[in-house]
């Protein structure tokens, strides 16, 4: 349940990344991966995100994924197939899909 909007600002709770995740921590290597990891950090309330970490394993759920997709489209100006985030839910896969979408948009539109 959500509280009343604007009724006092609660600082976002930032949790440390769970060391027991199935993925090893791998730092972002490109600017895009860095931007995406930051977006996830804010959305999930985590202190850091590895590019191979699974969105759902990090505590994401399907409703949050829907909002993240819209945010990604608005931030990067590209359309990413929804299956990428739902079925390959890592920063690395998402970055690859955005790159692909950017490369393809000139030729297709």
């Amino acid at each position, binding site marked *: 349940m959500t509280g009343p909007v604007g009724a006092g600002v609660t600082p976002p709770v930032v949790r440390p990344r769970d060391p027991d995740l199935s993925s090893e921590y791998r730092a972002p290597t490109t600017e895009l991966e860095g931007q995406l990891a930051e977006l996830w950090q804010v959305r999930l309330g985590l202190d850091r995100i590895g590019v191979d970490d699974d969105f*759902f394993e990090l505590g994401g759920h399907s*409703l949050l994924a829907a909002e993240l997709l819209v945010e990604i489209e608005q931030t990067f100006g590209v359309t990413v197939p929804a299956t990428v985030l*739902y079925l390959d839910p890592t920063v690395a896969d998402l970055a690859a899909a955005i790159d692909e979408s950017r490369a393809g948009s000139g030729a297709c539109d």
Partner: protein
Amino acid sequence: MRLIPAPPGPDRPAPLDLADPAIHATDDPHAVWRWARAHAPVSWQPTGELGFWSVTRHADVRIVLRDHQTFTSERGTLLTLLGKPDPASGRQLAATDPPRHTRMRAPLHGQLDTAAVARHAPMIRARVTALLSDLPEEGVVDLAGIFNRLPVAVLSTLMGLPDADWDRLTRLTMMAIAPDDETWQLPRGPVATLQRAHRELFAYFQDQVRQRQRRGGDDLIGTLLALQVDGAALDPGAVLSNCYSLLLGAAVTVPNVPTAALLELARSGDYGRLSAAGPRLDLLVEEALRWASPANHFLRHTTRETVLGGVQLPAGAPVVVWLGSANRDESVFADPYVFVPDRQPNRHVALGGGAHYCIGHALARLMLTTVFDEFFARVAEVRPVDGVRHIRSTFAAGFTHAPVRVTRRTSACAGGAR
């Protein structure tokens, strides 16, 4: 859930974990419920490290379903969410209490009320006749295989989804409904199966929403996108979650009603006489709903201390109402374990009650009426055969396999019994 044959088996006072899906597939929850209704109608049911108050009597079930101020839907409505926060709380219709719920529901209801769904009657009849077109003159058919396809075929028209996606959507809805069942389970197990189905459906609806945003549309998805609650549109997660819920709500429930009823009529030997007599389909549909009780339970949480069935419940307690139990309550239904095609009155709670009464009730009733009408017109006799298998689920009371031997009518009177 296993629908017990008449006469019912002996009562079962022994504790049985009703939160275990296997119980509902292979054991006899009715024996437990019957004992509970007589001796402990509202009782604490432990499951693992958690537990819930189990509610079995018709009157108490109705109180829980109708009093949304005492029994909230915003902390999860299914046992799978017990002990976990529900991300859909306040966003999905089923997980939202009035007054917000009322404002979300009204526009959707406008597309699903009796007058609105009547416009779809020819489409529904065409879908049903297509499903029944391959019946052999004489032979074994799987009723579950036939009817499991109906809800997606009908809902996809109302939601504006392409016909080409029917098979995929049917498979995904079955994976989501019965992830414990080997028929649909992926090699990596039930949790992976449910996750895969859930995420594929969300991704699917996300792409559909995008199309609707580009091209517009006055279907149910378009309605969700246009919906304004207190001056604000639904957020993207809420739109998807409601798409998911509408499709699943129909897929879980509708197929199992004719399947359960026809299996019982085959078992009792009454099918031939009944189908030839031209029964009142409105009464038959209600009895089939009672008999099947395809949505088996709902979860609520108390918002304050309350007394239910003479039992003191604390605030914040999980409460599970068993619709299958309420619909066999001896104090409401005479001979509850007998399928009475013209039972009247029939105050079953198969479609829920109160603010969350099934939003698709008119559509469901039209689909079911059409199914019985067309089936009776084509099939002279239905006989039981071995191999009926129940869904392993605490929520979906139904069948993965329901083979019966059918004999077609010889006279060419297809096209409606009346």
